[in-house]
């Protein structure tokens, strides 16, 4: 009764045995999932591309190669000799350097959006759900109101009124990204609140905020992480859409959306590489996030204890 056989066998020394946490279990399950691991590798490669790219690119992303300018369709082709590995854009700027730049911005937008949603949304939802009653009512009505605002419209308005800047873009995305997360976190918190371990903590006299941080949040985290990995691509898509409308980041900064927009407008001139490269990175990154998100979901709640 005291301990199972195998546990008793481990007990040669009196040193405490390391337990298998649910996190460790989940990691093992995730690593067994081939698609998820492949997705993770792709994402790591894309991240490495964004980080290392500036140091290996032969051209700067702002410099115009005057040699190709009049003749982009021929001279601006991807080639190893000219150093334009991905070719150039319609203005004769190096597409490799521009794609690295766009990848940085797009990943940044996605990750910042997801981070805001994780931090703000989780805390907000957990507090609303834990305290319940009137606090919950007020907090969630605020979320409802914010959600009912057509955020694209507001975001575009923000960008038009305050000017296009990276900061405005982050503010706009930060304003909306946490709303869904708050709802998800609140719903999960309501379920967790019925658990006896929460009651035990309350009965002992643990303070409410300690309970939220110690008991609620760690048990929410599985769902939150899964949702956040799926949120990164949707943030990237929002940004791309805005850039596609010509309202995104400002030149010489660029993003996948802006590059795809530029490439698409040149499609009839026989310079498909301008569309192809950014689109390629955009697509593999989205798939990478989807696979990783799926893998995390399977790994984190097989039958959520």
């Amino acid at each position, binding site marked *: *009764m005291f301990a199972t056989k195998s*546990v008793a066998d481990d007990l040669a020394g009196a040193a*405490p045995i390391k*337990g298998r*946490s*649910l996190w460790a279990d989940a990691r093992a399950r995730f690593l067994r999932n081939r698609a998820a691991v492949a997705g993770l590798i792709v994402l790591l490669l894309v991240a490495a591309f964004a980080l290392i790219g500036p140091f290996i690119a032969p051209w700067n992303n702002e410099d115009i190669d005057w040699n190709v300018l009049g003749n982009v369709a021929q001279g601006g082709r991807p080639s190893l000799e000219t150093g334009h590995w991905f070719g150039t854009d319609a203005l004769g700027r190096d597409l490799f350097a521009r794609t690295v730049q766009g990848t940085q911005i797009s990943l940044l937008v996605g990750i910042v959006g997801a981070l805001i949603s994780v931090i703000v949304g989780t805390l907000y939802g957990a507090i609303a759900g834990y305290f319940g009653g009137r606090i919950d009512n007020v907090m969630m009505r605020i979320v409802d109101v914010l959600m009912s605002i057509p955020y694209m419209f507001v975001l575009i308005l923000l960008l038009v009124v305050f000017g296009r800047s990276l900061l405005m873009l982050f503010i706009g995305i930060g304003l909306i990204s946490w709303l869904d997360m708050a709802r998800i976190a609140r719903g999960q918190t309501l379920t967790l609140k019925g658990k006896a*371990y929460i009651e*035990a903590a309350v*009965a*002992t006299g643990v303070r409410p905020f300690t309970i939220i941080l110690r008991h609620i949040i760690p048990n929410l985290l599985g769902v939150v992480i899964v949702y956040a990995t799926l949120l990164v691509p949707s943030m990237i898509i929002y940004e791309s859409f805005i850039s596609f409308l010509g309202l995104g980041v400002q030149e010489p900064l660029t993003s996948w959306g802006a590059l795809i927009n530029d490439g698409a407008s040149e499609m009839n001139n026989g310079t498909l590489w301008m569309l192809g490269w950014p689109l390629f990175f955009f697509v593999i990154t989205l798939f990478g996030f989807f696979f990783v998100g799926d893998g995390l979901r399977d790994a984190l709640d097989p039958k959520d204890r």
Partner: protein
Amino acid sequence: MSAPLLETRDLSVTFKVARQGGWPWSPPRELQAVKQASLRLEPGRTLGLVGESGSGKSSLARAIVGTVPVSDGRVLWRGEDIVSMDTAAQRAHGRHVQMVFQDPLDALNPRMTVGQIVAEPLRTHFPDLSKEQVRAKVGQMMERVGLLPALINRYPHEFSGGQCQRIGIARALITDPELVVCDEPVSALDVSVQAQVVNLLQELQREMGLALLFIAHDLSVVRHISHRIAVMYLGRIVEVATASELIANPRHPYTKALIASVPIPSPKAERARHRPVLEGELPSPMSPPSGCVFRTRCPIARADCADATPAVMNIGNDHLVSCPYHSSTEASPL
């Protein structure tokens, strides 16, 4: 007489339940989970609390440990009302009253190690203890409840149900409480493990001088470990007496039915005995019957039972029963 360790006086617990299909502003219905329950518990003693599912046992226990609001009445701790204490004092009081739960796995945070779980009350009430002191105390407590201290870094899902219940008991006892409320602590365990856990609780009670409020839905376990037993039906306490008195001389018709439902180990005696079996369902606590709440299922109910809530009568020997016809029950042909 000095004040008992714990006393409840006319304690009521009312839940507000949103009306189904109602408007958001229509007032919620009231569900009286506990109505005017009065109990006493002396230090170092065990009070058994029995009643069928939904009779309000857990609600009463929660009101005592302070996890549901008391709608009326008082909870006295050594004569001092804890309901009217301020929040900080109530939190500090948590050190003296701990709880053990029915579903042992549900009562342990799956993301925390056993050591962290057992240490939580200690860290809450004695924040000045050093890491080593906490660790040493947790190790001692684990040993005391029959767990190897080397398992301190394991997680709850790596243990069996009985072991999880031991962890829960260790957590409850680490602050050296005076009262432990055990809400059906063995109902969810295998029969073979139940006796071990009950024995452990009794042993610890003797060593540490604990008072226990031991909740169960039938008398089979409670009768052996309780000094006094209270019987609950639909939120009301219908009979209280010492364990031996209650078993030998039950007065309330509901208590009689409960006793009859505990099987006797010998088949011969089992067949020979007369068993008044309860018919019908427990009425809804939202709309309890008028007068005596047991009258819809009482074998000896009379017309005037619907008129008024029966008063609690002391029939001697500290035996309390709330049925005016308790002595006529023998004569009544069942």
